[in-house]
């Protein structure tokens, strides 16, 4: 129990900190690694919140596959470091708006979650599978995802392919 609590809040802290690192780093590589850290911390939180299956997926798919893709592209393109923090007026405006938005959204979820039900229960991958396939409700989305991925594939190929003769 105590371990749960420590793990959870520790992970939350790490997630927040590494999240800030993501946007504070000038180098894309560093950002990417920070992001991976964030994702892993989030995975811990997922687990503590009783969604073990999702936590695993988070690490495997997200931190593993997607972020590798990112890293790969960063390496491939030999992405330069960000040229400093010259975010300019847009950045400052965004920070300003971000503060407002943070206040608002944190306030909203804080107050909103106070009235949430507390039907806590651990879920396993079987629950997820049952939820996903026991009714046609999510079947549709599941099948649609295949189209999504296919079109992403085709799209990626079409876009990134080298021009013939170039």
């Amino acid at each position, binding site marked *: 129990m105590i371990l749960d609590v420590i793990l959870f809040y520790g992970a939350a802290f790490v997630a927040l900190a590494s999240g800030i690192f993501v946007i504070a780093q000038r180098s894309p590589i560093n950002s990417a690694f920070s992001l991976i850290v964030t994702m892993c911390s989030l995975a811990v939180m997922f687990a503590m919140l009783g969604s073990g299956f999702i936590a695993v997926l988070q690490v495997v798919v997200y931190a593993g596959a997607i972020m590798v893709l990112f890293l790969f592209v960063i390496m491939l393109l030999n992405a330069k470091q960000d040229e400093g923090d010259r975010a300019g007026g847009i950045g400052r405006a965004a920070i300003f708006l971000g503060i407002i938005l943070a206040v*608002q*959204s944190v*306030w*909203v*979820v804080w*107050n*909103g*979650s106070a*009235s*949430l*039900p507390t039907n806590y229960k651990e879920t396993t991958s079987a629950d997820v599978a049952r939820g996903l*396939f*026991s*009714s*046609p*409700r*999510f*079947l*549709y*989305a599941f099948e*649609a*995802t295949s*189209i*999504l991925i*296919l*079109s*992403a594939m*085709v*799209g*990626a*190929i*079409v*876009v990134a*392919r080298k*021009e*013939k003769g170039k």
Partner: protein
Amino acid sequence: MNVDLLPVLPAIVVVIAAFVVLLAGAFAGSGLRVCRNLSTVGLGAALAVLFVAPTDGNMGGAIQGGAYSAFLQGSILIVAILAVWLAAARLGDDQVQPHEFFTLLLFSVVGMLGLATATEAISLFVALETMSVALYALCAMPRTGPQRQEAAIKYFITGAFSSAFLLFGIALLYGASGSTTLAIMARGVSQGGPLALMGAAFFLVGFLFKVGAAPFHMWAPDVYQGAITPVTAFMAAAVKIAAFGALGRVVAVAIGGLSDSWAPGVALVAAFTMVVGNLGALAQSDLKRLLAFSSVAHAGYMLAGIVGMDGRPEGLEALLFYVATYAITNLGAFGILIAIRRNGQEPAIATDLTGLSRRDPGLAALLTVLLISLTGVPVSVGFVGKFHLFKAAVAAGYSGLAAVGVLMSVVSAFYYLRLVVLMYMEEPEKSTEFRIEPGFVPTIVALAAALTFGLGLFPGPLMALARAAAASLF
């Protein structure tokens, strides 16, 4: 598990068509014409399925067939067929593998069909992303010239950004209700609470982005300008139908109970969109940017229908009618750009149309009809549609929004009329040579113009369809 596939049948047909096109292109090396014809057949078959098969099912709550979905799907499919033909007219110029292009186009149509039918947040999101991802790629085609990629990256970044908001909105609505099914969401949402409010707001942000409402519109001019014209035409027409269709459903089914909270805000957005769109178009010389701002403005008018819903189907009915007819009209207007070759080039800036009526009075007249409709001057479907939208807004108590709308229509007259001025009242330079794409493009434009004018005179049948569609959600 008993799965009733009937409501997804049209989408399935389109998916099959997409596979066939992809495979035919990849393995049989089919050319433009074959791909075009295959796509047309597929879309046509989907349309036929829509008419023939009883699609009234719900797949466990993920999607919902019926009048509303059918109306949207029908509109999308018709627009898609026209877009396929417009694209076919242009792809010959550009170095594009036609089968890839048409596959992506068909995939995005699948996404749109999903959007039009989805009654569950997950399906909705996946469908939206299917459509978007295909469109991002379409925008980047062909790879010649950095404009395309720039348009694509802009569309992609802003699109993904707003998707995140949409997703957050869904999360919050889910938090407020415990379900991702719209109808069940409505129960939780109607009790109010900060989660539901913020969820509704962010949900709206996501869709307001897709429909191009101000201030979520700034991508539109750049993307419209950067993409090739058939893609622009397809986006301007079909995306609007799908996005507004989904938005209308969500508003009617899920967050309608909260309309007291968000309707004033959306009314402001609508007014702001009309103003920004119309004023923005005023100073544009680039034709596609002009049409982009014009489409922003029209999104504003259509939002008046959302605002005018207020628990009654009239606003939705107006919205459906308008978005369908607007798509046709707009497609016709883009068709003109595709049909014309001025000194061998597609007309890019407004003055490229100078003296068109002297060279091709017929095409000029058609464009005039379309522009008149876009302005909203009778006799045209644009007028009937606006009348309908503003009527709904006024009935819901938003007379001020209607006033802004009509005044902004006057502003819009200025820039639409400028094109008419150029076509009819200015003399072309001696060396200007207009060549008209032979064959089917002028026919498509003529068809659009005829629909625009004819529906302006006799809107009854289509309006009845829209009415039935809207009523099915209430």
